[in-house]
């Protein structure tokens, strides 16, 4: 098996709940248990009220492309051999946006507003990355 060449997340105390969920193939976002505000990326204290009472909310995994770009040039290791690729913000049904890749789709076919659903890429035995593909059940 070839070594995974792209950067991997450096998982820390504030983020491990998110990445552990990804390993279970579950997408979660944090909700402040004090003020109810959703937030992504995860962090220990809520920036809205500074409470450290955290809930992890499991997401449906569905959302829509908020914006994207087909990247044809990136000299960094792991990416230079994977061109072109689609970098995107996906807006989850729950409301927050996350940076990700759109996969299982011709880059030229990606559109803003396109319904997408999460797909989990097991990059290494320890790290699973959430990515998104066109939703099967497009309305």
């Amino acid at each position, binding site marked *: 098996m070839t070594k995974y060449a*792209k*950067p*991997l*997340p*450096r*998982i*820390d105390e*504030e*983020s491990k709940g998110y*990445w552990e969920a990804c390993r279970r193939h579950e997408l979660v*976002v944090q909700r402040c248990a004090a003020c109810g*505000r*959703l*937030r*992504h*990326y995860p*962090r220990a204290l809520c*920036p*809205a009220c500074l409470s450290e009472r955290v809930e992890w909310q499991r997401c449906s995994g569905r959302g829509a492309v*908020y*914006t*994207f*770009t*087909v*990247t*044809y*040039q*990136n*000299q*960094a*290791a792991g*990416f230079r051999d*994977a061109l072109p*690729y689609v*970098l*995107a*913000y996906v807006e989850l049904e729950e*409301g*927050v*946006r*996350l*940076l*990700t*890749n759109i996969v299982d789709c011709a880059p030229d076919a990606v559109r*803003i*507003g396109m319904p997408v659903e999460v797909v989990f890429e097991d*990059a290494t035995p320890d790290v699973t*990355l959430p*990515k998104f593909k066109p939703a099967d059940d497009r309305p």
Partner: protein
Amino acid sequence: MSALARAVIAGVYEHPTRWAPDKTQFQLCAEAARGALADAGLTLADVDGFCTAGVGPIGIMTLAEHLDLTPRFHDGTNIGGSSFVAHVLHAAAAIAAGLAETVLIVYASTASSDRYAVGTGGLTLGDAPDQFEAPYGPTVLNSYALVAQRHMHEYGTRAEQLAEIAVTMRRHAGLNPHAKYRDPITVDDVLASRVVSSPLHLLDCCLISDGAGAIVVTAAERARDLARPPVRLLGGSEGLCHTAMGERDLLAMAAAQSGPRALAMAGVTHADVDLCMLYDSFTITVLLTLENLGFCARGEGGAFVQGGRLGLGGTLPTNTDGGGLSSNHPGMRGIFLVIEAVRQLRADCGPRQVADCEVALCHGTGGMLGLRHSGVTLVLGR
């Protein structure tokens, strides 16, 4: 009148080099410092405040050592390419507070001769959010492309409109003997250049060069008997945009925060601005900055930049040196925005001179537009 009025810009220097494989970054810094001090009629012995960025996290000490400076005020704020615009503000605040009398701001980079891929080298800054971003391949360039795509989607902005910005900057560069690229280009040339990150073409992107520049800010009283007429600091402010807990409006820039504050402090309106110097890392940066500064309404940037408005002779001449798109871009270009504004206000610009240039607005954008970026607005007057 704001406390900024206690300080003035007394000297500027833009290094003519765009390719300096035979020189170090620090040598270029020293040459730029020498140029700006000579322009001001001052010497290194007059410098008691020092600002720089892009020399490593605490490299300001090493660069001060290289120049044998022992300043009583230093500022190594690094908020990306806008850092040096912020340094002018910080220098003025320090002078107004009595922390320094004469502040030297200096920048140099050999990005081009080092073959440093400023925009497309991948991004791993070692910050906490890296783990949620770096695995997906963000670069400086594609972070701006994400915003351009969204703008096109929301407002129907067209590639031809972005291209006109690049064409205008290139026309200005043709009047600047030091600009790296001076041959005219057309909208069709921009559209025919390869797409590097959709919807941005190669000619929507700033170039990469070596380069250096320096600015001397001094107390207004000290400037009265100096070599050149001082340029006044009328107003300024800073701003920041980030992912905002996952709810960021991607078309809102830090410029919308800093711009109105800077104009209000200066006591001028958009109609008073004779020259804009806007960080043009990419064509979309210029278009979106104009909207966010309030020169046109949100979504109207595409139409606003058409018809030669930003060109010399237009109603809002912008980036008269050719900008980062055509003149120079060593990685953090903010210092050159201020330098060209000062040259225009002094009427030093020869064939590219803006007639009766009395008020200039500089706006630096630093960082990755679609991830997190800084904005610094500075309003200058003669």
